[in-house]
């Protein structure tokens, strides 16, 4: 028999405090992993935010959306338009992106949530594909089609001109009241938003609202007969997660003011699903962890090339070395997607509960081995709270 005592507010503060320290200290502790450069850390923060938001929908309510990349795209386009019209300050861009993606999510959620299970997944997929196709075709005046939307020197940028910062030499970079949002400041800017997003996620997980969302996943029938109208709850969760996605999309443009439709493709939606389940759907820290692992591996694997492989395997005898390199070559560089697909399968087959659950199983097994069986041995690990 397992027990799950509720986490105390003090425990949560400690946990969130630790999380904050770990995130802010990333430039230090990522150094030994060779990942402490700003571009990559920005990606960790942005995709972490995306996955944390997705988890509020999928992890809590169990509704598997295959269309969340659409909200990422809407956020990106909105942000770039805000840069073009208002100026390079990221704050209005982020706010507008959150509002726009929230409105868009409300509309899609309103329709898709009329169905559950696989029908819901296919409806969201259909909407995302529609958005993607439209972004490439009719909406070209807004999205600039295949080329992608970017900020030009000739754009109005009303606020910039008002502030007398309209004329810029060289490439346009977003700046927060004079501070350029690239490099390390760019990372810290994203990190602050990640922390805000994580804090909100903490609150939702512990709240009555979060409890209702979990109840939707477990037993909708009972919830209905308990006097709860389930759809508005699911709808709210859908909009919230859409807003997270929009925020992440806007942050992508803050660090690199270019928005392309490929961001909305359904493989991108699949990627956020993978991040979430890899870390552990329904856990607080899992999605961030999953996003980190995916983006880190992407970075490592894509960076390798034949040359690097030959150097690594140079110690092997020639014939074997050539064979090993040609096999390994399939999985690196361009072959990163192959690795991603395999990772996807392996995780779902062997670790559907994600890394967090895997860690708990191991620690439970260790406890049992040590003979710490004072009645508290757990046979079925609880999701980390």
């Amino acid at each position, binding site marked *: 028999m397992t027990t799950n005592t509720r986490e105390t507010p003090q425990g949560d503060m400690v946990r969130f405090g630790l999380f904050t320290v770990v995130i802010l200290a990333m430039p230090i502790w990522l150094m030994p992993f060779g990942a402490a450069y700003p571009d990559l850390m920005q990606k960790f923060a942005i995709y972490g935010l995306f996955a944390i938001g997705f988890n509020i929908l999928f992890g809590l309510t*169990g509704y*598997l959306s295959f269309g969340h990349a659409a909200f990422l795209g809407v956020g990106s386009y909105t942000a770039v338009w805000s840069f073009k019209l208002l100026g390079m300050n990221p704050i209005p861009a982020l706010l507008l992106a959150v509002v726009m993606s929230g409105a868009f999510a409300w509309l899609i959620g309103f*329709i898709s949530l*009329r*169905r*559950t*299970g*696989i*029908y819901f*997944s*296919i*409806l969201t*997929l*259909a*909407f995302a*594909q*529609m958005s993607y*196709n*439209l972004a*490439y*075709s*009719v*909406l070209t005046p807004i999205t600039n089609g295949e080329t992608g939307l970017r900020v030009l020197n000739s754009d109005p940028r009303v606020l910039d001109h008002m502030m007398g910062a309209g004329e810029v030499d060289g490439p346009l970079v977003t700046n927060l009241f004079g501070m350029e949002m690239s490099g390390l400041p760019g990372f810290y800017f994203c990190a602050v938003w990640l922390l805000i997003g994580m804090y909100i996620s903490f609150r939702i997980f512990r709240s009555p609202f979060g409890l209702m969302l979990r109840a939707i996943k477990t037993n909708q029938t009972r919830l209905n007969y308990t006097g709860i109208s389930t759809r508005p709850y699911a709808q709210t969760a859908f909009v919230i997660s859409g807003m997270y996605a929009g925020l992440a999309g806007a942050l992508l443009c803050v660090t690199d003011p270019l928005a392309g439709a490929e961001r909305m493709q*359904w*493989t991108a939606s*699949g990627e956020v*699903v*993978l991040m979430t*389940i890899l870390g552990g759907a329904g856990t607080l820290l899992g999605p961030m962890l999953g996003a980190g692992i995916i983006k880190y591996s992407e970075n490592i694997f894509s960076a390798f090339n034949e040359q690097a492989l030959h150097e690594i395997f140079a110690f092997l005898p020639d014939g074997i070395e050539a064979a090993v390199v040609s096999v390994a070559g*399939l999985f690196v560089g*361009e*072959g990163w*997607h*192959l690795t*991603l*697909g*395999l*990772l*996807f*399968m392996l995780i*779902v*087959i062997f670790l*559907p509960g994600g890394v967090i659950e895997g860690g708990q199983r191991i620690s439970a097994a260790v406890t049992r081995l040590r003979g710490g069986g004072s009645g508290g041995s757990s046979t079925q690990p609880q999701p980390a709270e």
Partner: protein
Amino acid sequence: MDAILLQILNGLDKGGAYALIALGLTLVFGTLGVVNFAHGALFMLGAFCAVSVNQFIGLEQVRLDPDNLTPWGTPVEIREPYIVSWLGDTGHLLLDYSVPVSILAAIPVMILIGFIMERGLIQFFYKRPHAEQILVTFGLAIVLQEIIKTWFGANPLPQSPPDAMRTAADIGVLVGFDPGQIVYPYWRLIYFLFSALVIGGVFAFLQLTTFGMVVRAGMADRETVGLLGIDIEKRFTLVFGLAAVVAGLAGVMYTPILPPDYHMGMDFLVLSFVVVVVGGMGSLPGAVAAGFLLGILQSFASMTEVKSILPGIDQIIIYLVAVVILLVRPRGLMGRKGVMEG
């Protein structure tokens, strides 16, 4: 009138492809209860069977002709496919008909792939939640398409139909129109007939054989069939193989219409899922009807007259129809009660 007829015809070949893929998807879903996101990859693998066969029988022998010299003074290279030098005219014929010939190779290959997929992966997911089935087959689809990409490259590889079928048929004349009004490429016509034949074959197989009877019974009520003491597992494998062959053949024959590339499977999968949902999850006639219906609708939406009124409609028509159908008729056109409702 002739414009409408032409659009219907234009939709038939694409509709045929949708119907064939959706048929297999439904078969697998109905009997095995598995949502297979890797089904599009089977279509793609079929198409690459055709590519491989073509490359294989097109292997060239290079000889040097010492009597003929290029302006640089080197001998002229004479390239000739081995098959032509061995079989002469028959070789030429085989090369010309490489796409239809590929069917012979594709059937065993697809059965094998289907068996490996079902025994190696899918069978472990019968009892797992649909979300996990979706995710694991999604991963498999990525893996398969990436393997094809490394092997065949990222660019589309155009395949040509046999010379005799390269032209277009003036089929308007047959039904009383003036010549030149309804002209339809032979190969598309063949594709439609081929898909109709395969669909008919699958239905006949399900209606007329004992095996088919068990499969149909399994689609109606899986538990009961299991209780009757029928070894349903073995049949599942065969059903999966059948679905793989149908998807593969759809892919083989589609290559002259759409040059195959590694992501064609994904492109068709999303659409085919929409087709299945519109037709009604678990309904075979529904899948076929919805396949053709959506194919034809799509070709109507691509008419310039329609596009000028509703710009971009050709890009989204299928999804739009799916959304409307799902909201108005949750079970799809021919769906049964109790399938995937939760």
